[in-house]
């Protein structure tokens, strides 16, 4: 998902837990929220920083593929909508960074880890957005997959993370609907436009399936995160839900999901479908996707180019404070 392959801890049985850890697990089992500054196992804190941080980075880096089309949107209305959407992504990143910071990590530390490659962002944002139809596919599929993961995370055990997710989910459905709206327009357009929509679906289908992370049988360390309610569903559960939801939407558009083995399975009440190419997933995560260098390069450049501005505003604030202090002195 927006947080894939988050390193977690091995799970502990009740006999191996300290009394503090048992009391903590009991609180989580009673669905009590854990708040900043309360006692928590070190592993819980570290896993959350990694997961929320990765989630935040994904929101921020996720602005880039769509930012690519702001200047080339087909109408002024589409441009205004896309701008609002990209601005929302920035906002979502900020909510999440703030949630991570309540765990005792600083914003600069998180950014430094992103820029040095020590923290990841979702693999999906390392694919290029080649046509306007990709804006439709990204909203429809990528935001659709994100919603699938984020809705259950509203019930996550860590208070600030849960509250950030609630805000994000409220805003996210606009994103998916605007994407589907673009797809509907394209599919009702000229044959060339419809072909463009089909091409976008072809390219984004498997990368969207990869967003949920590796198959459960290869997904290590899920158990502890699920016990801590940091992860609410397994990767395969969410992927299945996503496919079941999306296939009828593709049919409505008159588009074909690029999977010859896709088939309704009456017994399980869901679709059978092909797994994505996991070697591609691991290559993209490792930094070898089509756009990894470009995306990270853009982030680092923005950070470095903005340094003078951040420092300038701090200097201005310090001066203004000095002047105010001097004025107070003079008045006394």
């Amino acid at each position, binding site marked *: 998902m927006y947080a894939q392959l988050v390193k977690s801890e091995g799970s502990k049985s009740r006999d191996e837990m300290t009394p503090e850890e048992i009391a903590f697990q009991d609180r989580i089992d009673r669905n009590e929220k854990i708040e900043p500054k309360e006692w928590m196992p070190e592993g819980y804190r570290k896993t959350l920083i990694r997961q929320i941080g990765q989630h935040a980075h994904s929101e921020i880096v996720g602005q880039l593929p769509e930012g690519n089309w702001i200047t080339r949107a087909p109408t002024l209305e589409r441009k205004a909508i896309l701008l609002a959407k990209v601005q929302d992504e920035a906002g979502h990143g900020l909510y999440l960074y703030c949630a991570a910071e309540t765990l005792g990590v600083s914003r600069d530390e998180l950014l430094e880890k992103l820029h040095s490659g020590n923290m990841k962002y979702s693999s999906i944002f390392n694919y290029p957005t080649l046509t306007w139809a990709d804006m439709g596919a990204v909203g429809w599929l990528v935001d659709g997959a994100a919603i699938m993961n984020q809705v259950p995370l509203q019930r996550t055990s860590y208070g600030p993370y849960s*509250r950030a997710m609630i805000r994000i989910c409220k805003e996210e459905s606009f994103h998916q609907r605007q994407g589907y709206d673009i797809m509907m327009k394209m599919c009702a357009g000229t044959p060339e436009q419809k072909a463009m929509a089909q091409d976008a679906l072809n390219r984004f289908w498997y990368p969207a399936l990869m967003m949920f992370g590796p198959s459960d049988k290869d997904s290590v360390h899920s158990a502890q995160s699920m016990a801590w309610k940091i992860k609410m569903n397994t990767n395969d559960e969410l992927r299945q839900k996503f496919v079941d939801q999306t296939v009828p939407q593709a049919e409505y558009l008159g588009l074909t999901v690029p999977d010859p083995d896709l088939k309704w399975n009456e017994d399980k009440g869901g679709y059978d479908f092909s797994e994505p190419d996991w070697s591609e997933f691991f290559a993209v995560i490792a930094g070898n996707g089509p756009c990894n260098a470009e995306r990270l390069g853009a982030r680092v450049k923005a950070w470095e180019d903005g340094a003078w501005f951040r420092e300038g505003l701090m200097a201005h604030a310090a001066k203004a404070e000095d002047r105010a202090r001097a004025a107070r002195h003079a008045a006394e």
Partner: protein
Amino acid sequence: MSSEWPLWEIFIRGQHGLNHRHVGSLHAPDAEMAIRNARDVYTRRNEGVSIWVVRSNDITASSPSEKGPLYDPSNSKVYRHPTFYDIPDEIGHM
């Protein structure tokens, strides 16, 4: 020197005459910029009519480990609740 902007806690009053409510935090160089940033981060959909910003460092919080001793005294004072008093049915709503 670290040029990280200080952290501010953001409180917003919703439309309906409610109290200001904590909505989250953000970084800004000074109070004026904190309000501008809060407008963009927390009220993109008309969520408020008034914003307060407070430096996070200026907030003193009760300690989570004192939860017991701090609130215990109110537990024994059930007579503070209206349900403590039996009012005859004939009296009607009171």
